[in-house]
């Protein structure tokens, strides 16, 4: 059914608004059919900077919201002195009612938030935002430390089931993807190493290459990247949704510390599980390398013995030590973005993206720092 507001003479003509000055008053003549998707409105004359005093609707056809929207824009463009109300003389009653309703609440001028900003101001805002983000990270890490302190003192309150659920989510449930990626990384290392070392007749050293690369770097870094995308994002999305639904406010007003309740179990779970996943990833990566080794003619026993010779406890522990810090960085990034997320579904999406980017960045930065430290210590 077409939305026919006013059953005037249906002349199927394009909509037209014509201003005339009659007896010192502005007359606005409205004619034609005013429909969304119809021809553009033709305006004749001008209103002399005043809103209409009278309306002539003799030639007005059918109309939908187009007409009241046009009249409202006209009335808003020519505001009357305060205390005076616009005249609707000549307008049909139903249209008058809609316009009165639309004008009942004055326009919120301050609500227009789009303002042009200079480049210097934008740079300043960006700098302030970056500084605030840094302070936020420091504050969040501080709060996590205090939460850990409360845990050590036995004063942290959280549901133990939440801890075990998080352990399951970031441990056992991550095994399939960690297995696949680690196995493939081990294979890739072996293929690349074999291609180069065969030229020197030292293809047995593929075993050393795979073992040392996996236990020192690749195992822990790949696991951390997987966990950033998988678990860090899940933490941010879950806590962000809780924030959007005011669930975190409900925790606060119910006397719970949201840090102890939400962040601590996730932080603990990831710090506990990351070393285990790293060890697992190292073993699977070496097995992947071993499979390629057997394909290129290195006997499995020989590969295994060479691996045992090349990996000592110091080497093997380096990746595991790093994994604890990586786990903490991933958990802090995910939880922080979730806790700081806005109260909308779009904000939850942004928080998830930021959590992954921040976690991967921190993993790489920390890994570089560890590389420098281990080099200095000659490890």
């Amino acid at each position, binding site marked *: *059914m077409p939305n026919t507001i006013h059953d005037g003479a249906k002349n199927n003509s394009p909509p037209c608004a014509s201003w005339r000055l009659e007896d010192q008053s502005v007359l606005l003549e409205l004619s034609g059919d005013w429909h969304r*998707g119809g021809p*553009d409105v033709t305006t004749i004359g001008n209103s002399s900077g005043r809103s209409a005093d009278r309306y002539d609707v003799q030639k007005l056809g059918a109309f939908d919201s187009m007409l009241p929207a046009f009249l409202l824009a006209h009335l808003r463009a020519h505001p009357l002195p305060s205390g005076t109300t616009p005249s609707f003389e000549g307008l049909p009653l139903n249209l008058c009612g809609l316009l009165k*309703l639309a004008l009942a609440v004055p*326009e*919120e001028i301050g609500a227009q938030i789009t303002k042009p900003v200079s480049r210097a101001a934008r740079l300043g805002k960006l700098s302030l935002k970056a500084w605030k983000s840094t302070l936020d990270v420091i504050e969040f890490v501080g709060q996590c430390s205090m939460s850990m302190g409360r845990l050590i003192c036995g004063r942290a309150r959280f549901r133990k089931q939440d801890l075990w659920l998080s352990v399951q989510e970031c441990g056992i449930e991550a095994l399939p993807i960690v297995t696949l990626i680690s196995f493939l990384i081990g294979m890739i290392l072996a293929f690349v190493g074999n291609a180069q070392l065969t030229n020197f007749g030292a293809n047995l050293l593929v075993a050393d290459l795979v073992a040392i690369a996996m236990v020192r770097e690749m195992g822990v870094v790949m696991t951390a990247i997987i966990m950033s995308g998988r678990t860090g994002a899940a933490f941010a999305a879950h806590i962000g949704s809780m924030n959007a639904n005011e669930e975190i406010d409900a925790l606060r007003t119910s006397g719970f510390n949201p840090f102890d309740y939400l962040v601590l179990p996730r932080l603990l779970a990831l710090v506990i599980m990351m070393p285990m996943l790293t060890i697992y990833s190292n073993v699977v990566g070496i097995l992947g390398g071993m499979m390629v080794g057997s394909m290129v003619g290195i006997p499995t026993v020989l590969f295994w013995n060479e691996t045992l010779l090349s990996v000592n406890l110091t080497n093997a522990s380096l990746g595991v030590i790093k994994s604890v810090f990586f786990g903490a960085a991933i958990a802090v990034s995910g939880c922080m973005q979730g806790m700081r997320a806005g109260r*909308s579904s779009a904000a939850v999406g942004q928080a998830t993206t930021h959590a992954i980017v921040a976690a991967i960045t921190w993993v790489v930065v920390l890994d570089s720092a560890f590389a420098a430290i281990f080099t200095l210590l000659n490890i």
Partner: protein
Amino acid sequence: MPAKISVHKLTMAYGPVVIMRDLDFEVNEREIFVIMGGSGCGKSTLLRHLVGLMEPSEGCIFYDSNNFTATTIEERARFIRRFGVMYQWGALWSSLTLGENISMLIEEAGQQSPKTVRDLVAYKLSLVGLAGYEDYYPAQLSGGMKKRAGIARAMALDPDILFLDEPSGGLDPLSAKRLDDLILHLRDSQGCTIIIVTHELASIFGVADTALFLDPVTHTQGALGNPKHLRDHSENPAVRLFLNRGLTPIPAS
């Protein structure tokens, strides 16, 4: 004139759990029809059935004598284009501003000049008392404002049938009264049929031509008629109790 909406023997269920059975009512053109009942009785579920978000377990829904329940996806899309739906919590698209929430529908419906779209958006927002809030994101608004913006979006395309889920719930009395006025003006000026889900008695008595009471005890249609008449003369004591705010109901006469 055939009824605008006809519901025949409608049964709503979540799996084996029946929410309401044998609902049978008609809504006439230009009528303001209220679906009322206590919390959790299935009012919003009925609305979801009427707009096609849920399928009936049994029974049919007709719009202008056309069977809505037994339509293909393409036919249903044509039906739905005539609907404007306002959800209980606004359901505004959070990544868009209020202006964009409304203009997206207008632009999608056909070629319009940017000024026309801007004027239409300003008009729709003014009708719900949100003039000037075009550039605000939903997250920056209060709950009541989100609700009103949801109504503005539902009205964006001058729908033939407007469905409003708890429109005045959580609004201050003045905003609720303005909303009731808006509903009456929309019906009178645009000729649209309006279905409202609510349990706000002031709104029910203020705007409803006909009210349907859903009885959560019997899981059936408790009463159908003019709410003022039902308040004083309904044969169902639950209806009289509901419409008298739990005060001693006037015995049915």
